[in-house]
């Protein structure tokens, strides 16, 4: 006890400095997660919400039902597709754009930085309206462009297999800007000396990229990969505003499935168990990333 008190008086100020963050995290992250875990073992619905005495514990039956629910299984499959296609594309393309934009500092380059960044700060509802028109099979720009080449009209959002691709394209467009900025910042942190030394040794442009730039972007790449991965596992906004999960649940993501069950159908217990499955998947994905990262060489 004395130890504790001494420890407290010694570290009083550091504790006070981190207190706001700790409190906020506890109130808005840790407590809700615990509450959700508890709810996931109950049959909580609207009646239960109005009168807590109607809430009954149901053990693991929510989780069992979940893995029997074809829509949930489909949503896991869809989410996996989003992640497998989307994440590598985001990382590679945003790095490529950052590299290209890093070649110059003229007004053209600055303008394009803005052009690439704009999508990430645009409101998703506005994006949905505009992209809805681009994808519209009757009046859409995309089909109009296709018609120049004699390609027949595509049902961008109404064809079950094409709809997923359409949403990935939209999400990709939206995600590039922010990640590009991170890569740009990291690029500017690479000391010029390395390039000069390499040039003296006769390294060409491609070799400099391969052996200096990309390895030194390692940490930025790791950061972008992990945040993008987490973001895409929770893929929600795009199907929510564009397709509502349709057609035939082809674009239903796990997060949208949880939302639908929680807020459309009032099955809070069921939704909470779904969100816990999602939570565990994210934790696992993150741990795997960290494990892989450890094997990499530090510079």
């Amino acid at each position, binding site marked *: 006890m004395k130890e504790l008190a001494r420890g407290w008086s010694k570290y009083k100020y550091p504790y006070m400095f981190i207190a706001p963050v700790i409190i906020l995290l506890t*109130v808005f992250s840790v407590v809700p997660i615990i509450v959700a875990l508890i709810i996931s073992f109950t049959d909580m619905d*609207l009646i239960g919400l109005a009168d807590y005495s109607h809430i009954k514990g149901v053990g693991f039956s929510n989780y069992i039902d979940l893995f029997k629910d074809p829509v949930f299984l489909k949503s896991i499959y869809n989410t996996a597709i989003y992640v497998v296609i989307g994440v590598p594309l985001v990382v590679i393309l945003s790095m490529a754009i950052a590299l290209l934009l890093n070649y110059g500092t003229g007004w053209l380059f600055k303008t394009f930085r803005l052009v690439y960044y704009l999508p990430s700060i645009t409101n998703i509802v506005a994006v949905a309206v505009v992209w809805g028109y681009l994808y519209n099979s009757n009046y859409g720009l995309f089909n109009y462009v296709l018609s120049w080449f004699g390609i027949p009209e595509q049902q961008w959002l109404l064809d079950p297999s094409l709809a997923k691709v359409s949403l990935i394209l939209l999400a990709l467009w939206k995600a590039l800007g922010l990640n590009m900025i991170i890569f740009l910042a990291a690029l500017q942190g690479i000391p010029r000396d390395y390039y000069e030394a390499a040039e003296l040794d006769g390294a060409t442009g491609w070799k400099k990229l391969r052996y200096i730039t990309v390895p030194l972007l390692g940490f930025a790449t790791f950061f972008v990969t992990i945040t993008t991965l987490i973001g895409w596992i929770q893929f929600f906004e795009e199907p929510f505003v564009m397709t509502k999960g349709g057609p035939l649940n082809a674009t239903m993501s796990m997060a949208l499935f949880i939302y639908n069950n929680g807020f459309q159908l009032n099955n*809070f217990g069921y939704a*909470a168990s779904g969100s816990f499955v999602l939570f565990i998947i994210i934790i696992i994905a993150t741990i795997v990333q960290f494990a892989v990262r450890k094997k990499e060489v530090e510079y």
Partner: protein
Amino acid sequence: MKKKGIITVAALLSISLLAGCGSNDSNNSNAGASGDSGASGTASASSGTSGGGSTTLKVWFMGTSDSVEPIAKMYEEKNPGVKVDVQAIPWDAAHDKLLTAVASKEGPDVIQMGTTWIPEFAEAGALLDLAPYIEKDPALKADNFFDGAIQTTQFNGVTVGIPWYVETRALFYRSDLLADVGYPEGPKTWDELKDAAEKLVAKGGKGHYAVNIDAKDQNYLSMFAWQAGSDIIDSNRQPLFNKPEYVEAMNYLNSFYKEKLVPVGSELDTFAAFKDGTLPMFISGPWMIQGVKEKDPEIEGKWTIKTLPANKNNKSLMGGSDLSIFKYSKHPEEAAKFISFMSGMDAQLKYYETSNSLPALKEAWNDSRFTSDPLISAFGEQLKVAVPTPMIAEWEEVSQASVASFEQITIGGADVQSEMDKLNGKIAGILSK
């Protein structure tokens, strides 16, 4: 959406805690205004204020506030001492907001309920039984309103709402284009609708459709099922989705998809397509009248509205909103009085003026603005045979399942009867939970 799934569900609870804290002082201030004023009045011998006091009535409406505020003002003028605090909630956010109100047991006194929400919130016990108030006030009697509208206010035999406005679906059609294919007065039966549709598309060619089918909306499917003589869920809570009548309706609708008479999805802009004749008919509600008038002035006089084509009958959907008293209201008496005013002649006509919503009060339909306008009176005609969706709390879940099945048929190409058998089994499972 970082951990949002978890957080949002749990946030409901935290919000209920926060709102619970907040509720204390508003309770006190309300009590101070009405209940306590009598007691303190006698104590301080200033009994002058005890009779009137000032009550603030909190009212939640969906939509925009400018449609309701003028009516609230009318009420305040007639009832000095009562302040009506109107809060407008966008329709999209309303359901979530009502959930939080139920969770926190703290909300408005009077609440506008979309008719399809009545069962779920009534089952949760969030709405007050209005029987004692209806007993006292003849203006609230069921006879005053459309039958279909009254059905939406009942849950398990308890009246939890008073009809406020109604809406139904009817057929908008281009009279000029329909005349070209031999139906100047629009199709009257299912066979005529199908025949007119085939002819219109054959005549129009590529990019032309006949009518819209809103396959995302169970209401649309329900209407055709009713017309085929089907019910949707019987009185013993048994689903009837695989019975011959319902299947007939689905087959009929599916034939429009097979022959490409309807646009897939909702990607066609109705106003533009109605104007250029690529969609000469559509089924929708009274809110579209103003839009067509404003956006398609070029075709004025070339379009009109009629009741839906009939099979065994021409039933349509009874929608709209009711007014209910929130269970946790501190002023149920005043709330009932306010609702009585809102459902009365003056307020009903005024609300039509401010929002174009059709009155639920039958007597209001004798007013010249309804009898003289053929567009509106078509809806008046349709309302007489309009019925609400089944009043069960699970309806949202049932209708989502049904819409998904219909999608399996039209997009997935599933066999109608076997898909409906599957759906019926699934819904029986939902209802027996």
